[in-house]
């Protein structure tokens, strides 16, 4: 359980919190449950990420929002309006498709104008709006080109302009960076967020890339097997994972099986087979003595030293088995006598700092009483 000072923000009725309101949305395909009773409230103006692996149900949920799939049960409300019975062409929702789905036989301008023309706007109004959108995504000069004459990054901006042209109430992004190479990705992530934030549109994106979700989204819903495992801000999900899945999916983590030894309101101790010392947690949790739990601590929270640290608990002795050098930091894999391996990051603040520790060195790994999280599920 997360410590009390960082509860997920509760939904307040009447506020903008439930601008997009999913109530028990379920989608089955021939008995297979793709989306399993998802309830979510998304705020107005928020960039919300559905993060999960393949088969987690995130894409199906997005297609339910766009109207390409009909939920088996449950309700979808946008700005108080029920969406379930509206076909995609009547929803005030536009989507930027994975690998963009730009119309290959139309120019950039015609692509952006497509949605506007469906609304029966005058030719002048369409042209003006297309010009605005092209300026917004900085493609002013490329309006007459065909999609195949553009680079990947340019195509992405055309797709964004096309999906924003109608001023939708909700913008959907399906794996927005999926078709770009890694270098371009980090640049476009921030650019996309900037454009979306200028328009103020509420946005739901689907991605399998945790880095992308954490960079772009204000809040993330972590999905697995049709379930939402955890909803929270990027730092909440990283620092206070709700369960083992959340801890392991995002970033890397040391998971240690343990049992609650002493359960007090202001501290908890755990016993483990992994090392002789007890684990001391600096706050209370809801559990009972003898309950099996997992102790999760991120590699960057572990300190590594050749001498025994002064602290009473939260330390283990082992030998360095592997070193992974990443330039900015190194990851040491420390094998404890019990056979359990712990990963500890070491920031290479000084040049050649990583050379102080080497394979086979006997070291102490230690952490603070608030650095780890106790997971009961």
């Amino acid at each position, binding site marked *: 359980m997360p410590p009390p000072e960082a509860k997920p923000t509760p939904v307040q009725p009447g506020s903008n919190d439930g601008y997009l309101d999913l109530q028990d949305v379920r989608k089955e395909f021939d008995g297979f449950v793709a989306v399993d009773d998802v309830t979510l409230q998304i705020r107005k103006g928020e960039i919300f990420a559905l993060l999960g692996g393949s088969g987690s149900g995130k894409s199906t949920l997005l297609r339910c929002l766009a109207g390409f799939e009909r939920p088996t049960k449950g309700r979808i409300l946008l700005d108080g309006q029920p969406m379930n019975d509206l076909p995609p062409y009547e929803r005030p929702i*536009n989507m930027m498709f994975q690998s963009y789905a730009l119309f290959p036989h139309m120019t950039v301008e015609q692509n952006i104008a497509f949605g506007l023309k469906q609304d029966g706007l005058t030719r002048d109004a369409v042209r003006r709006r297309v010009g605005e959108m092209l300026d917004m995504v900085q493609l002013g000069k490329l309006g007459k080109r065909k999609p195949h004459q553009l680079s990947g990054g340019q195509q992405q901006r055309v797709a964004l302009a096309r999906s924003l042209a109608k001023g939708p109430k909700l913008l959907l992004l399906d794996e927005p960076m999926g078709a770009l190479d890694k270098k371009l990705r980090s640049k476009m992530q921030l650019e996309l967020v900037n454009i979306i934030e200028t328009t103020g549109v509420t946005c739901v994106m689907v991605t399998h890339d945790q880095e992308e979700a954490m960079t772009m989204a204000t809040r993330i819903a972590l999905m697995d097997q049709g379930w939402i495992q955890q909803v929270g801000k990027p730092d909440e999900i990283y620092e206070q994972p709700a369960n083992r899945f959340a801890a392991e999916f995002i970033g890397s983590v040391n998971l240690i099986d343990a049992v609650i030894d002493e359960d007090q309101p202001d501290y908890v101790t755990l016993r483990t087979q992994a090392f002789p010392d007890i684990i001391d947690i600096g706050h209370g949790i809801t559990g009972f003595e003898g309950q099996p739990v997992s102790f999760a601590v991120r590699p960057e929270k572990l300190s590594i030293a050749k001498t025994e640290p002064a602290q009473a608990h939260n330390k283990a002795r082992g030998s360095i088995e592997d070193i992974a050098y990443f330039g900015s930091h190194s990851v040491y894999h420390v094998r404890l006598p019990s056979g359990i391996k712990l990963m500890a990051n070491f920031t290479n603040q000084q040049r050649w700092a990583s050379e102080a520790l080497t394979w086979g060195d006997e070291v102490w790994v230690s952490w603070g009483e608030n650095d780890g999280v106790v997971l009961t599920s």
Partner: protein
Amino acid sequence: MKLAALKRWLPGARWAVIAPPYLWLIVFFAIPFLIVLKISFARLAIAMPPYTPILEYVDNAFHLKLNLGNYLNLLTDSQYIAAYLSSIKIAAISTALALLVGYPMAYVIARMSPAARNVAMMLVVLPSWTSFLIRVYAWIGILDSNGLLNRMLMGIGLIDEPLRILYTPVAAYIGIVYCYLPFMVLPLYATLVKLDRRLLEAAYDLGARPWKAFLTVTLPLSRSGIVAGCMLVMIPAVGEFVIPEMLGGPDTLMIGRVLWGEFFNNRDWPAASAVAIVMLLLLLVPILIFNRYQQRDLEGRLS
């Protein structure tokens, strides 16, 4: 090395690959075409073969005698012009009908599951495995006043006396559309099955109703298939002989029948050759259009 020296003079493997199609075209297309072209400039003669030579060796000199009379005849005799126009009209209407029937077929097949698609395409192609002549003949049995169709219509009480369909232009249209339908469906299916369904979803997403999405996305993107299918039906249909002869009746005027008449009834080889050459020139226009489209399509995909 003797072997190496020999190898230099032997045609390489590259030629073995490139040559056969060219040889094929020369032997079975270029030479027959030149022979027909030559005959079209000759005069009718009671001889064996029944035309005059156009190149004669008289008085130590070659004399080239080109007779343009056959071509002038085509221009002046209204019967030929009427036959050409009628052929093009019948071919064009048949092509349009085949497109109207074939597009929905190809569309539905392309939307089926991959397993069902193969079965459906098999069913489209399967009739072509039997003889063309037999299939046309079967239509006589269907369209005859005493045939299947009339008996069925009278059986359910829709008509009192048999419809006269056989030996009218309508029967020729039915025959041409039926026989050439696979040539329309195949290229249409090939383009429609490749069509990215997400493009349609994108159109819906942007507010296009299904019919509008079809007109603005599916139809323009299947244009290369439409052009290919229309050419594959139109070009052979213009010169069609068997179907109008067997189903069409005397008032179905088509150039193929005129050609047959000139050649076999009048035994006027030069006139028949001229008719054939002009037909070829007429067909060249749509063939060139077709090639241009195909090339553009290819270029678009490569870039």
